[in-house]
């Protein structure tokens, strides 16, 4: 799994951080999403899929 984020779209709702804290973080100054792992291990895939599904700004894209 490869994770792609679009920081320009991010609205800082923080949903991804709650769903997959090992993969997503927020930039301290403005809360914009920061990607911690571009290729998360299999055991985190479900959480990452949830993060992508609930992101309100559609700022997370997943590729194989």
């Amino acid at each position: 799994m490869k994770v792609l984020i679009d920081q320009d779209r991010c609205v800082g709702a923080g949903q991804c951080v709650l769903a997959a804290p090992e993969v997503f973080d927020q930039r301290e100054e403005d809360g914009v999403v920061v990607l911690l792992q571009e290729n998360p291990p299999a055991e985190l895939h479900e959480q990452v899929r949830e993060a992508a599904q609930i992101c309100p700004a559609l700022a997370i894209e997943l590729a194989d």
Partner: protein
Amino acid sequence: MSEALSDAPEFPMVRGRRPFDPPPELDRRLHDEPVSRVKIWDGSEPWLLTRYEDVRAMLADARVSADTSKAGYPPQSPGIAARRKRAKAFITMDEPEHGAQRRLLTGDFMVKKMERLRPRIQKIVDDLIDDMLAGPKPADLVQAFALPVPSLVICELLGVPYADRAFFHRVSKVLISKDTPPAESLAALEELLAYLGGLVKQKLTDPADDVLSRLATEQVATGAMTVDDVAAMGQLLLVAGHETTANMIALGTAALLEHPDQLAAVRDGDPALVANAVEELLRYLTIVHTGRRRVALEDMEIGGHEIRKGDGLIAASDIANRDEKAFPDPDKLDVTRKARHHVAFGYGVHQCLGQPLARVELQVVYSTLYRRIPTLKLAAPVEELKFKHDMVVYGLHALPVTW
């Protein structure tokens, strides 16, 4: 105009005998007419969307506008209609203005910062419970606890004196009532803007460590925003920051007291279960119960219906959160359910900015209140409780409890 238009039912619809459930007519629409016209207070007939997928798709669609001043926008109340040209905050702006203004605040509400506030929120909650236990019973949980918790927190964050709470609680109530006459609504807004504008000016010369001070020194002092712009932003944060969470605390408590097995699970559960329960209660209660409103900026298709440019759109998040396609056995309150994909905070770029704060507040409240007062119970039958049918945010006017 087609014939169907004249048959459009009134919206919002009336709730049935179960005060924690959306109106039965909304449930019927979800199953029989998921995209349909309704008639609102001003006589206009916007589209009502009830399915989870349609609601999410519409709210995430850049072809719809949240700008209340655009022709065709379906306002929640005469008061909101009267206020729409005054004091626009980012909630009623579209991109790119919306994103630019919202980003000035996203850092203040980010998950990590709200986690750092948790001990402070815990202290506020514990102190209020101490006071309640020391006072007379029965007590009104709304006044003694549900309203003070988020009011204290948002006051500290924004830098609004908590001593002025009687004033802004009164004004907020006027602003979110569906029945406030337009002139009164506008006057209440002016009062609140004048108050917040005064605070902003004060903070320009004497800043503290709070959001209004930061906006004053970084935005007003540099000429990027006016005092009035910051006051408009402040009124949104102040009203939204305490009215919503206060209602979730009182209504959630009433719902849990009516579901003792669920309350026991929350009371005895670990922090992960409490966090899960908060999401389920947000889904189940969906207090923003008059729909998320938009207007179509171009012709589009939703659920097989032709939507025209300028048509009003209402996303009924409360019934969308009861769509069995997204939540199996949706009318059951089940605190172990995976419900994080609910739309109680809305969806799309306007999804609630303060949700990380609301989550921490509700987690602290739900994990503390029932543990510290295990004998908490209603002091009046549920049929006698005064639910907020008259407000754009659902909840309880009062919640008499004893222990």
